[in-house]
């Protein structure tokens, strides 16, 4: 049986990727950011999953304004790093996990989540910066990845509640996949930031710390937070934080917070990071039969 063994939240600021690619990680400005991820880099080296379900948003790289999927799941064999206007990042091709991805797509759709299925797309900094933060510079990523893209650019994004529920459905779907796979789920983006208009540069550390507290202790309450609150208090781009609720929903109720890090700034943004571990599979959901796992003889009389 596949199982979700950990959840990671982290920002995906593009300048972090650029700093890494250009060898600036020990500069005074960047050192505190990268040092903040040292613990996790050591930890994940011993806990490397087979698959990462990576919840992120595309930044006008794969999806133009022609088609704007609210939730999209990548089912491809691989994904190339996108050229976002300055050439593609010099990072490895991202290997997909189409067997599990298709299982998740089918299970989620039949469970009430109308996912868009993506068979070909490039992936931008939203997906590759978190991989770089966890695995550093490498010639091949040590994990396969299932990209789960959430629209947070075109208003309105899905509600925090819907994201949290999607996480719960992902947990059910992973647990009905027969192959023994170690799966992590990462929620990325945020924390407070605003990239446009005279209010650009807004940072709200109190909001961010409360978000991290609630993510651990009261995710159900946090899921009720309205879009207006994110926009007003965390900045127009701070609304990316709803993606962390997908991650949290997939971990079950009982979790242990292993690691937390918070730093201002990276470029225009507050950097947040959290590592959460489910305490058990005790709340495993049994009432849902995934496609292809039904047993027995069909009644065809």
């Amino acid at each position, binding site marked *: 049986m596949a199982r979700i063994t950990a959840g990671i939240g982290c920002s995906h600021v593009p300048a972090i990727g650029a700093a890494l690619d250009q060898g600036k990680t020990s500069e005074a400005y960047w050192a505190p950011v990268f040092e903040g991820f040292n613990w996790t880099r050591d930890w994940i080296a011993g806990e490397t999953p087979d698959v990462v379900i990576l919840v992120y948003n595309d930044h006008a790289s794969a999806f133009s304004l022609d088609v704007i999927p609210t939730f999209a799941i990548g089912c491809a064999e691989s994904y190339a790093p996108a050229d976002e206007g300055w050439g593609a990042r010099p990072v490895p091709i991202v290997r997909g996990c189409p067997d599990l991805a298709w299982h998740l797509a089918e299970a989620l759709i039949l469970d009430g989540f109308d996912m868009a299925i993506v068979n070909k797309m490039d992936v931008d900094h939203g997906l590759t910066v978190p991989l770089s933060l966890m695995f550093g510079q490498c010639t091949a990523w040590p994990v396969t990845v299932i990209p789960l893209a959430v629209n947070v650019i075109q*208003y309105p994004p899905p509600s925090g509640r819907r994201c949290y529920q999607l996480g719960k459905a992902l947990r059910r779907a992973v647990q009905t996949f027969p192959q023994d796979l170690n799966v992590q789920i990462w929620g990325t983006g945020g924390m407070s930031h605003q990239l446009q208009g005279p209010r650009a540069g807004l940072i709200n550390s109190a909001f961010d710390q409360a978000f991290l507290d609630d993510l651990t202790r009261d995710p159900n309450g946090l899921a009720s937070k309205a879009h207006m609150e994110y926009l007003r208090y965390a900045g127009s781009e701070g609304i990316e934080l709803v993606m962390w609720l997908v991650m949290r929903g997939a971990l079950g109720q009982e979790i242990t917070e292993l690691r937390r890090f918070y730093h201002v700034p990276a470029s225009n943004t507050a950097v947040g990071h959290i590592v959460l571990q489910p305490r058990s599979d005790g709340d495993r959901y049994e009432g849902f039969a995934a496609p292809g796992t039904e047993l027995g003889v069909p009644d065809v009389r």
Partner: protein
Amino acid sequence: MTFAPEYHDIPGTTVFDGVQCRRGYHLNQFCMSLMDPANRDRFKANEPAYLDEWPLTEAQKAAVLRRDYNGMIAEGGNIYFLAKIGATDSKSFVQIVSTMTGMTVPAYTAMMVGGGRSTQGQLSKRQNALAADESEQ
């Protein structure tokens, strides 16, 4: 009575909603075309000619040519699309974003290193107006 979404109350902020999407569709799609290196070269070689290939308003074209990011946002641009113009200009996100605040890059960077822009006076136009009225009395 005119309906105005609640997020219009946030100072200095344009939420990219359906109205903005309709207004800026072609502007944003033009930006997206700059993901292709060949298009970036053509744009840099002759910006007005490249812009004329797109059904943009004169105000949109002028804002692009001036690199007036607040102007582009007002004309329906979305920052993640507009960032392709900045990337084509070899500008960082800080260099792009600071232009919208009326601050120099060093002053903006210093503000960010100091913890970012405070929320003080930045949360609600109505609240700011009330506070201004009270201080007059």
